[in-house]
């Protein structure tokens, strides 16, 4: 499009920061849905990294990878949300700590 010269490093750093933020969200939220949401943030950050790298090389491979990530995300979200529904039906709550029967 234009001759933007954002350093690759910056883009990747941004992806890392977004990933770390998503990770923090996964770890701290107790509601399963929020956990899934933050998981999406992490996946998105990974996709950003791929696209940035692809753009750096000028190849479409980065976007191809992003495409695959998206497909996987879609499948994962559908199954995951179905599981969330079952979870809610079974435990009557969305507290992820409620499902801890596999304790040591």
């Amino acid at each position, binding site marked *: 499009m234009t001759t933007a010269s954002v350093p690759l490093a910056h883009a990747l750093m941004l992806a890392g920061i977004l990933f770390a933020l998503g990770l923090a969200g996964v770890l*701290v939220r107790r509601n399963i849905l929020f*956990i899934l949401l933050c998981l999406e943030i992490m996946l998105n950050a990974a996709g950003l990294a791929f696209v940035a790298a692809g753009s750096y090389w000028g190849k479409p491979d980065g976007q191809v990878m992003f495409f695959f990530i998206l497909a996987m995300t879609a499948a994962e979200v559908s199954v995951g949300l179905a599981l969330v529904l079952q979870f809610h039906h079974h435990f009557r709550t969305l507290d*992820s700590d409620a499902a*801890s029967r596999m304790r*040591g």
Partner: protein
Amino acid sequence: MVDLLDCLWCVPALPLAGFLVLVCLRPSKAGIRAIGVGSVGLAAAVAIGIGLTFLASPPTGFCFRQSLGIWIPLKGSETCFGLYLDPPALLMMLVVTCVGFLIHLYSAEHMARERGTRRFFASMNLFVGAMLVLVLADNLLFLYLGWEGVGLCSYLLIGFWYENPANGRAARKAFVVTRVGDAALVLALILIFTQLGTLDIRQVLQRAAAQWPQGSTAAVAAAALILAGAVGKSAQLPLQTWLPDAMAGPSPVSALIHAATMVTAGVYLVARTYGLFELAPTVQFAIALVGAATLLVAASSALTQRDIKRVLAYSTISQIGYMFLALGVGACTAALFHLMTHAFFKALLFLAAGVVIQALHEEHDLYAMGGLRRRMPLVFWTFLAGAASLAALPAVTAGYFSKDAILWAVFSSNRGGFWLWAAGVVGAFLTSLYTFRMVFLAFFGPVRKEPIHRPGFRVSAPLIVLAILSLAAGWIELPGFAGGVRLLSRFLGSGVSLLPAPESPTGSHGLELAVGAVSALICLAGVAAAWWLWLARPRVVRALLDRRPTWERLRRFWLASWAFDALYDRIFVQPYLWIAERNRADWVDDFYRGVARANVSLHGALSRTQTGRVRWYALGMAAGAVLLLAMAVLL
């Protein structure tokens, strides 16, 4: 014609074969008795045959060796299963097999109604086999094998009636106390092997004489350790506490093991290795001292006992003290002579006592017996023969000649002296005193308990044979004033026997006669005193003890065998039990328990990480990833 000497190996092998048969098979009761008695009987027959062959046509150097194979093949100093027959060994072999056979025959009837006769005869056969190995071994290690074997059988047989825990305790006590001696003997073996490079007895004596100067530490150490081993097995001071308690076993056991054979193994060992003792005069003197002290302590203890078998047990300790006394002054021939006669009369006394005990329904207390000479005349006359020999009744008994030989050697030898002889004389007085106390209490006076049965043939025959031997066996060695017959000492000292040459008497015949007369008078005085104290005026003793409390305390002190048991209990048993109690939770176990505890706590800690919560696991994964990244980045 087979040279009978080549069958030497049969003599120990036959009882051992009997043991194996009795252990592996299950014969009938009669079969058990037949095998048990027969194996020893055959061994005795072979032994007698060998003895006759040996006397008729003695082999060169009066020693016969037979090797049954190599045991420990060390280059240059192999240890073999070797048998060695020379006059002392022949004497011991005959004593062990013949007296052993008579005792086995006796037990065939005496133990007939017992349960466990298979176990009994198996142990007795194993014992005779092990004792023969001990006697005939040509090297110290093989001898030690027999030594240990007799210790084991002693344990098995003392605790024969194992349902009673007291018998088990007595057996354990015997084993543990003799173990002390056995440990010393092993140390002696190690010392001898490392210093002299061999355990073959003849070579040991030769090399020791060549390499160790008189009185050197090695010789003194070896001799002292061997003495300690002998002291343990022969129940001398300070390891004599086990023998009175060993009377918990059946009477044949007491007769065979604790009168005739095992307890004399110590005497035999010292006589065998006497060359070492000649290199250590201090140890020789120690032997004499041990012997003298033991005979006095034991004789005084025997005077106060009520149990007939305990009297005989202390008497055994005392008589072996005489043998040690003889060894200490160098009179090995006299020691072996007394060993032989003692085997006869002490076995006889134990067997007869066993008949009395069984006939009176397991009554051991002398004061509950009485007047048995009218009820059991055969037992009485044989017992009297044995008692007379024990008390050394002059001229008619073998005991007199053997004891007199010892006393004369002690008096006249330059290693002896007046005080040792005096101790022997006092001991002789005490011996005849307690012996005839026993005779008068049990066989004279009013009948307090009626005997329930008479002995049969298999009991009576051994008693009669032993009685004859107790009286007649002395005539092979008579002192100078009585004819100077020296058959035994010539036989024992012949050829290259391992014994030192018997000392020629340094006194005149008259002095010898005087010493002999003193011995005779002392014995008769003892008999008379016993008659007066316990038959004529039985209440005198009681009155004396009631009036003088010191005498009563003395009696109790002697009854407790000079409080050795109490002393050992204080010094050894209680501290050991205290330590064992402290270590009840075994510090070695603590290590393993600690390992288990550490595992369990680690398990607990790890289990707590399995919370089942998703976020926790995610945290774990994330932390791990961060850590790996950090490592990849930094390293």
